[in-house]
């Protein structure tokens, strides 16, 4: 169902969402970093941010998250889990690449055998209002990975900026719950035609085509390739590509303790860290950048597809934009397709 939201009603609309939900949306923080965060005031929301620096995954998988608090006692220690989500949530303004990534990490956290209740409680409590991406960046290559600037997978509602208003598409059952929202009106044919034109223009702006077909099979033959020795030279091991990747889901679990009280916390972790797989004995199964760079790329383009039938990359381009060593994953993919030449 296609409706529209007049921009002059946008702030009241946000306010009405906040009355009923915890609202999460893109914001530029005082230090300049753009993130998705819980909204305290409607005018914090900034839909002009294209690809926020930090991906939307942290709404469901925070960079640092308390799993439980504990208090030691004589008889039985008290452990209080923080898994419960008390208020439903709306994530507004996330871009198609970040939203497509939810479908990928859902598979990890839902799992066949174990369910990650911290992630899934947040996921289930959240209505996703996606936002079209009218001005893709030069680093964007979403259309090579089954995505695109108007890819609607994973969105419950989907907004397109028409200038004076937003086109609002209700795409799922969760989305249809907004059918009678007082700020939504029926969209007319002119607006639908306008939206179609914007969609076509945006699609044409993603110029880069990255050949990912068959990359899983290609990598099967490259486990011991000298290629990894070569590309690891560009990697400083700073890990920014993994932290900012919307599909990377690794974490560490640590205890933060006072004498009697404390909490168990999970924090984002990265396979590019030398300590990541180092064992207490000192043995490190991935002792150099070679094995660690290989792990990152193999996980995305070989291991993940083997387990879940999809490549663990959505083409958001953050790893290209923020790498201090100018490591370009698009180039890497092309080289892998040539067996490590090029």
């Amino acid at each position, binding site marked *: 169902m296609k409706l529209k939201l007049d921009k002059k009603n946008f702030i009241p609309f946000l306010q009405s969402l906040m009355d009923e939900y915890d609202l999460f949306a893109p914001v530029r923080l005082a230090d300049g970093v753009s993130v998705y965060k819980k909204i305290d005031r409607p005018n914090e929301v900034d839909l002009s941010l294209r690809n926020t620096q930090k991906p939307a995954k942290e709404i469901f998988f925070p960079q640092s998250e308390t799993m439980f608090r504990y208090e*030691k006692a004589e008889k039985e220690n008290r452990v209080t889990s923080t898994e419960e989500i008390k208020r439903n949530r709306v994530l507004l303004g996330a871009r198609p690449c970040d939203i497509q990534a939810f479908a990928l990490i*859902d598979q990890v956290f*839902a*799992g066949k055998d174990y*369910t990650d209740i911290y992630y899934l409680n947040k996921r*289930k409590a959240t209505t996703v209002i996606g936002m079209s991406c009218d001005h893709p960046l030069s680093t964007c290559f979403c259309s090579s990975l089954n995505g695109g600037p108007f890819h609607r997978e994973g969105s419950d509602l989907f907004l397109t900026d028409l200038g004076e208003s937003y086109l609002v598409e209700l795409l799922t059952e969760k989305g249809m719950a907004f059918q009678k929202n007082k700020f939504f009106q029926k969209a007319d044919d002119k607006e639908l035609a306008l939206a179609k034109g914007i969609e076509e223009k945006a699609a044409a702006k993603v110029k880069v085509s990255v050949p990912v077909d068959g990359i899983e099979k290609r990598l099967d033959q490259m486990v011991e390739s000298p290629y990894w020795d070569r590309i690891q030279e560009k990697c400083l091991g700073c890990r920014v590509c993994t932290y900012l990747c919307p599909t990377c889901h690794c974490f560490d679990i640590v205890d933060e303790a006072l004498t009697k009280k404390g909490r168990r916390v*999970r924090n984002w972790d990265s396979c590019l860290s030398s300590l990541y797989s*180092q064992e207490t004995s000192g043995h490190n199964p991935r002792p150099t950048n070679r094995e660690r760079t*290989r792990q990152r790329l193999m996980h995305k383009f070989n291991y993940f597809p083997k387990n879940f039938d999809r490549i663990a990359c959505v083409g958001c381009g953050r790893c290209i934009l923020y790498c201090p060593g100018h490591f370009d994953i698009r180039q890497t993919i092309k080289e892998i397709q040539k067996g490590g030449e090029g």
Partner: protein
Amino acid sequence: MNEIATTNHHHEFIHMKNPYLPIPAVVKNALVETSDRMLRTLELRFLNEEDAQAFSFVPGQFCELSLLGKGEAPFGIASSPTEKGSLKFTINKAGVVTTALHHLEEGTEVGIRGPLGNGYPMDLFKGKNVLVIGGGFAFTTLRSLIAYFLHPENRNKVKDITVVYGARTPGLLLYKEELAEWQKRSDIKLVVTVDQGDKDWKGKVGLVPNVLEEAAPSSENTYAVICGPPVMIKFTFPKLMALRFPNERIYTSLEKRMKCGIGKCGRCNIGHLYVCKDGPVFSYAQLEKLPKDY
């Protein structure tokens, strides 16, 4: 194309327990195993009877032991499912958590998450001979396996049981009293060896690979299970090949640094498999297809 997994799993999920929460248990007994005092066996008892009833495992599975304020670490279960009422873990003192576990007194609370991992392929072993090769303190889940099959209810599930177990010195052997009991039995062939004896040692002296070669167990209708330090495995493997064990019938249990233990946190993968949930037990037929990330 992919239905959001959360909807698929909705029903299961609302009834599911949080797999990250430790189940409370207490130390029933703590025993120093080795002369260097680096290995200690903790016997743990669940604090609540319903947790004890709900806990069911197979040899080869492991648990995350949790000390609030210190953290968690994974350990293979050293007791057998036939030994009801408690769980045993033999712990090598190496880092923060293991050192803290070494300092526990009887009655102290410990958290348990598990059982985790796949365990040994007990169904495949049915009706077959089993050859168990162990070295040093990697004998823990092998002890669980052997104790399971030596239980009167299970002894007829497999045919011959042959065990080759070695340590560097007599003082470093685990479960010495039990080894002595097994020596007396006629339904298990046990060869215990040390790299270097001492004045009281009357048993065999020799490295595990050589002792295995000498014992020359038949590979016919036999599964081999091998756990030990990498150097022992490296030299024992060719001996198994010479005895004509195919890779499909050689199993091992791997260790890797782990955190979540349930295939989410990412770190223990070898290729597309996770040691915590797809292992820790693998056949060499599986391992030869994977990167050597271990």
